[in-house]
């Protein structure tokens, strides 16, 4: 068995002899050798190693090498050359073959034959019939109820497309678009960062190394989100100091030097506590030049004036433009403007006090010029810059004019009506806001020992430039997502870690708006929906910034799922009667039961899926989606590592699976009677007509995605790297061929990502696309052109006396703390009955949210859901290791298995999320048995007041042992409606039935 007749050398010979094969050093050339098929050693075999990109999880772009033998994927491994992932390939990526060839994949179009809520008894139909059915269904809803009666339900973009996300907006013209999952993951971080600096700022670059590795509510080492496990561990080990924030001891958190073990839902409080230290502790040394020059801290604020402002980010205006386009906002601020002081003064000129001239001066927020400044200042390449890890690192040359804006003090100014009033720099207000948050107060709220708060702050703030802060979902889930997501960015900014080496370098969203060098969405990322219609998005009355967040794009392209469910169930504020879904689920955002009942009542629901997941069992028609190993597409790192590559189709699509972007959306549009897909709008006015194909083929789309890299363009689109280097490709095939040779490209080598601190160079603000001579404007793409410590948008829409809810705990637009709505302090009566604080979302390396439960290699390692509980708390409740327990909130109850864990705060539990049981029957597949979203709140009060994130963590539950007496079928183990148990052991024979089948293979 162990003897091999084929040596490594002969393997390579075989591979080399294969036409089109690409060879790279491989971790496991011999993996093929012990394949159960003895025919392997046949020299006539066609063996290729294809250099591609994994899509086993949501967005980390691990380069991979896919071995294909005779048209079949036989092995996947990490690509050691990939700059962003360093050879990492997690279990999800490795087990992808078990998804590709899974016997239960949806491979043919299906139409339901039974009423919704029952087993759909799917009937296989032809592709054309399914498309027609879907087109008719959508059209009839639009005809009857109007364009906004359709909503999308988008998963994590896993079929390598965002077409579905944008398709309804640009073609059907509904405002209820995007990925509702985005509102609980990344969307708030993108939105919050877009408000104060740039979208995606929460993403850190780790591959350039960090002095302090600061992991806040992350589990990147097992989630690979959005830095790979290998890079995370590498850089954690290399860092001088490591800080981990979270209520439970995490996988890599076990190695942290400082663990801030906060009470769930108090991330905002600990952030304010750290900011307090940063500003008031004499051992902390924030970068005051950054604060003065690049933030709005010096601008003078006056409580005694009425807020005034202007319309920002209007259509067609490059200023304020985001990835998907523009949506006009009314900026209303009490920051003093020239227009407050003199008749006919400019509303865009904001006042600061210059201590050198001892006079009031103005910063022009539209042109981003200080008073007296006439030309833009860029660092001097010779004097100010050094090369650092392949990038250009400039020290700040200081102010371009001879000024020193005051951060402190109070200044009397005369308004244009003659009133004399006091005004003070925003910095004074910022300090006043932080003042109460000393270590003792912060400790009282968060439960973290005061000395640890001080130690963490002193380690991170000892000097500027120690690296960015990696922060993830927990900050978004306790009902204060936008404000909480702003606070770590502010801490990082004060320490000059915005776009620094190892800092908040952001993501792909930047590249669209600023210095486009490729187009991922071509030509979809170009909103065609009128702002008046955009404003009709459900929840827009409560969360008025939603339409603008939708322009931010990425995961911020969302609508409020709770409002959407109400629109479906109660026609409030208008009926939503149709839904289009791309692998979306009902149990991630909002309450699962409310969503289930809503989706069940829809007039029409069509979607595409890989699996018979519970939600799609409510659909009228489902089309089979292609697996990522069956689709080519351009790929870039979502996180801050800065790499691009390609996902290359490795095998032919099975059954009638389609790539939704090219096939389904196009055919659906034609069938619905539209004259074009995807849009008639040109991304740029100079775009030649010949590129605007009304019905692009798949190849057309792929060619268009790399068009900006074409060397023969009649006009330049791409902005090169600092040394002038650009990536040139003729077409998609050329791009793939170059990728096979090169592996991932580091954006530093081919784009302005090669500049650190891009705000110094003008690569953080959009540029007039029609004027190739337009200057690059240093600063940020915010209303003030600054990194905003006082968010003028927060002030304008959720400040004092606006039409909408005031941001809780905020101070005139400076973000603040909100106690979770269900906590021992905010709801003491409820706490008596529900005495446990629930947190959720811990990452299991095997599963990407609801995925992987039917892949044997994954499910056998964690067959059933578990929750972590402190042994003392468990003992009080009579719970032992492995007991099935009921976890019950005011909204519902589920069962998970107890895992006694000394690393979690007593009185707190951490529940697995997103469970369902593919082995149980349609339509529910057991989602209601263990899915944590059964428990979550659907009250508007519990939502984030700014963007509507539902309250997914830090709420109250009770926990008790499941017994034969209190469990259906007398069985504490969750069961199907007929009493069949779920799979709960690795030896369950049903797991083997899920091993690959090659019955549907197309060779």
């Amino acid at each position, binding site marked *: *068995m*162990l003897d*091999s007749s084929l*040596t*490594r050398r002969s393997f390579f010979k075989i591979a080399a002899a294969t036409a089109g094969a690409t060879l*790279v*050093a491989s*971790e*496991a*050339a*011999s*993996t093929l*050798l*012990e394949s*159960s098929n003895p025919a392997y050693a046949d020299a006539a075999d066609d063996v290729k190693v294809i250099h591609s990109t994994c899509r086993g999880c949501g967005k980390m772009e691990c380069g991979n090498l896919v071995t294909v033998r005779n048209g079949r994927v036989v*092995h996947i*491994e*990490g690509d*050691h*050359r990939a*700059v962003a992932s360093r*050879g*990492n*390939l*997690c*279990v999800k990526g*490795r087990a992808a073959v078990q998804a590709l060839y899974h016997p239960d994949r949806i491979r043919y179009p299906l139409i339901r034959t039974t009423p919704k809520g029952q087993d759909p008894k799917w009937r296989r139909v032809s592709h054309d019939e399914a498309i027609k059915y879907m087109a008719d269904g959508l059209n009839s809803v639009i005809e009857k109820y109007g364009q906004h009666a359709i909503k999308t339900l988008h998963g994590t973009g896993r079929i390598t497309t965002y077409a579905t996300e944008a398709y309804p907006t640009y073609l059907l013209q509904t405002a209820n678009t995007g990925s509702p999952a985005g509102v609980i993951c990344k969307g708030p971080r993108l939105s919050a960062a877009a408000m104060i600096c740039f979208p995606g700022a929460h993403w850190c670059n780790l591959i350039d190394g960090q002095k302090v590795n600061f992991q806040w509510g992350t589990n990147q*080492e*097992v989630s690979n989100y959005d830095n*790979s*496990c*290998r890079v995370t*561990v*590498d850089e954690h*080990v*290399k860092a001088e100091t490591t800080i981990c924030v979270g209520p439970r*001891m995490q*996988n890599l958190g*076990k*190695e942290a030097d400082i663990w801030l*073990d906060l009470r769930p839902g108090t991330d905002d409080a600990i952030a304010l506590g750290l900011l307090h230290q940063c500003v008031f502790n004499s051992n902390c040394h924030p970068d005051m030049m950054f604060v003065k020059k690049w933030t709005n801290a010096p601008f003078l604020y006056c409580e005694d004036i009425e807020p005034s402002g202007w319309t920002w980010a209007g259509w067609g205006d490059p200023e304020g433009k985001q990835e998907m386009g523009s949506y006009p906002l009314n900026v209303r601020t009490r920051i003093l403007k020239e227009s407050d002081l003199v008749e006919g003064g400019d509303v865009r000129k904001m006042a600061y006090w210059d201590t050198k001239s001892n006079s009031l001066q103005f910063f022009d927020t539209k042109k981003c010029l200080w008073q007296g400044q006439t030309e833009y200042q860029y660092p001097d390449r010779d004097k100010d810059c050094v090369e650092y890890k392949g990038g250009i690192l400039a020290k700040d040359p200081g102010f371009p004019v001879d000024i020193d804006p005051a951060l402190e003090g109070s200044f009397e100014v005369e308004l244009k009506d003659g009133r004399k009033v006091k005004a003070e720099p925003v910095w004074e207000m910022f300090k006043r806001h932080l003042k109460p948050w000393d270590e003792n107060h912060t400790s009282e709220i968060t439960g973290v020992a005061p000395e640890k708060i001080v130690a963490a702050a002193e380690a991170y703030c000892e000097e500027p430039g120690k690296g960015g802060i990696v922060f993830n979902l927990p900050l978004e889930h306790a009902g204060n997502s936008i404000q909480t997501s702003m606070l770590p960015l502010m801490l990082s900014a004060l320490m000059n870690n915005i776009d620094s080496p190892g800092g908040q370098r952001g993501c792909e969203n930047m590249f669209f708006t600023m210095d486009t060098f490729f187009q991922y969405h071509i030509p979809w990322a170009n909103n065609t929906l009128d702002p008046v219609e955009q404003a009709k998005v459900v929840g827009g009355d409560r969360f008025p910034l939603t339409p603008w967040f939708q322009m931010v794009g990425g995961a911020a392209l969302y609508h409020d799922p709770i409002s959407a469910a109400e629109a479906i169930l109660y026609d409030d504020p208008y009926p939503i009667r149709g839904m289009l879904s791309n692998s979306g689920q009902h149990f991630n955002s909002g309450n699962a039961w409310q969503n289930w009942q809503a989706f069940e009542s829809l007039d029409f629901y069509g979607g595409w899926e890989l699996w018979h997941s519970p939600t799609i069992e409510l659909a009228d028609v489902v089309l089979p989606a292609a697996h990522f190993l069956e689709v080519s597409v351009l790929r870039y790192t979502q996180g801050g590592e800065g790499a691009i590559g390609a996902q290359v189709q490795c095998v032919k699509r099975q059954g009638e699976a389609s790539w939704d972007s090219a096939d389904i959306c196009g055919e659906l549009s034609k069938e619905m009677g539209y004259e074009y897909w995807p849009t008639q709008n040109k991304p740029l006015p100079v775009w030649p007509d010949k590129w605007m194909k009304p019905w692009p083929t798949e190849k057309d789309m792929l060619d268009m995605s790399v068009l900006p890299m074409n060397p023969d363009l009649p006009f330049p689109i791409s902005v090169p790297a600092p040394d002038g280097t650009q990536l040139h490709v003729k077409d998609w095939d050329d791009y793939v061929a170059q990728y096979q040779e090169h592996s991932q490209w580091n954006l530093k080598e081919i784009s302005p990502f090669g500049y650190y601190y891009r705000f110094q160079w003008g690569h953080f603000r959009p540029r007039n696309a029609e004027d190739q001579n337009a200057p690059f404007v240093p600063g940020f793409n915010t209303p003030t052109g600054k990194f905003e410590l006082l968010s003028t948008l927060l002030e304008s829409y959720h400040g004092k006396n606006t039409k909408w809810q005031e941001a809780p705990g905020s101070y005139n637009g400076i973000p603040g703390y909100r106690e979770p709505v269900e906590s021992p302090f905010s709801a003491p009566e409820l706490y008596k009955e529900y005495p446990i604080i629930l947190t959720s979302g811990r990452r299991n*390396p*095997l599963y990407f949210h609801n995925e992987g439960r039917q892949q*044997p*290699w*994954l499910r*056998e*390692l964690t067959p059933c859901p578990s929750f972590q509980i*402190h042994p003392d708390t468990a003992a009080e409740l009579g719970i032992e290791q492995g007991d099935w327990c009921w976890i019950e909130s005011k909204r519902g109850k589920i069962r998970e298995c107890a895992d006694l*864990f*000394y*690393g*979690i*705060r*007593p009185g707190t539990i951490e529940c697995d999320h997103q469970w369902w049981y593919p082995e149980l029957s349609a339509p529910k597949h057991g989602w209601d048995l263990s899915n944590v979203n059964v428990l979550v709140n659907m009250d508007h009060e519990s939502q984030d007041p700014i963007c509507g994130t539902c309250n997914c963590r830090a709420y109250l539950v009770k926990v008790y042992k499941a017994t034969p007496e209190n469990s259906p079928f007398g069985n504490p183990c969750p069961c199907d409606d007929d009493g069949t148990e779920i799979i709960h052991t*690795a*030896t369950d024979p049903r*797991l*083997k039935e899920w*091993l690959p089948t090659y019955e549907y293979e197309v060779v």
Partner: protein
Amino acid sequence: MTQYTIVTDLNRCVSCLNCMVACKEANDVPIGNFWIKILRVGPNPKFEGAEYPDVEMYYLPVSCQHCKNPSCVEVCPTGASHKTENGTIQVDKDKCIGCQFCVMACPYGVRYLNEEQGVVEKCTRCYQKTQEGELPACVVSCGGRARWFGDMDKGWDDFRGSLDANGEPLRLTDEDYIKPFTDADVHSLPDSGNHPSDRFILRNRVWR
């Protein structure tokens, strides 16, 4: 002499479980059988009487320890389980009768009956790879670069791990990846006279 050994830097192991799945793939291990397992050790109180958050934890990958004095070889009635020249323990499937005496004798619970074939299986150190000069699947796939393979009789210099950007295996002696450790930081699983060969590096923590 040769003693093929796997050393795991437990401070780098984050329980990403890559080793478990890579092993499955490389060795076609039946569903429900595990030639390597990751155990969570703790969290335990850092010191007597310590409470949350003063706890510590590590993960422990456990596979066949390729003992110097293996109980499984001793009890095997047919000679199927045997020690090879490179110090590894292998099962000759032609000789194995599936009696599972070895499964019971093994102090670490890492042997499994392959029900289809009626023979006992376990970690081979990816014999099919190592004989070709490659690294075992659990070593090269390790997400945290925690696992290292080499000949213990040649010393630490011989140990190689995951690949660098040029496709060359990293060395255990590279301090960029392996922080300094002392002899006191090097541990093995409990030894009941069978002398396990695997080693585990654990710094700043109590080995339990």
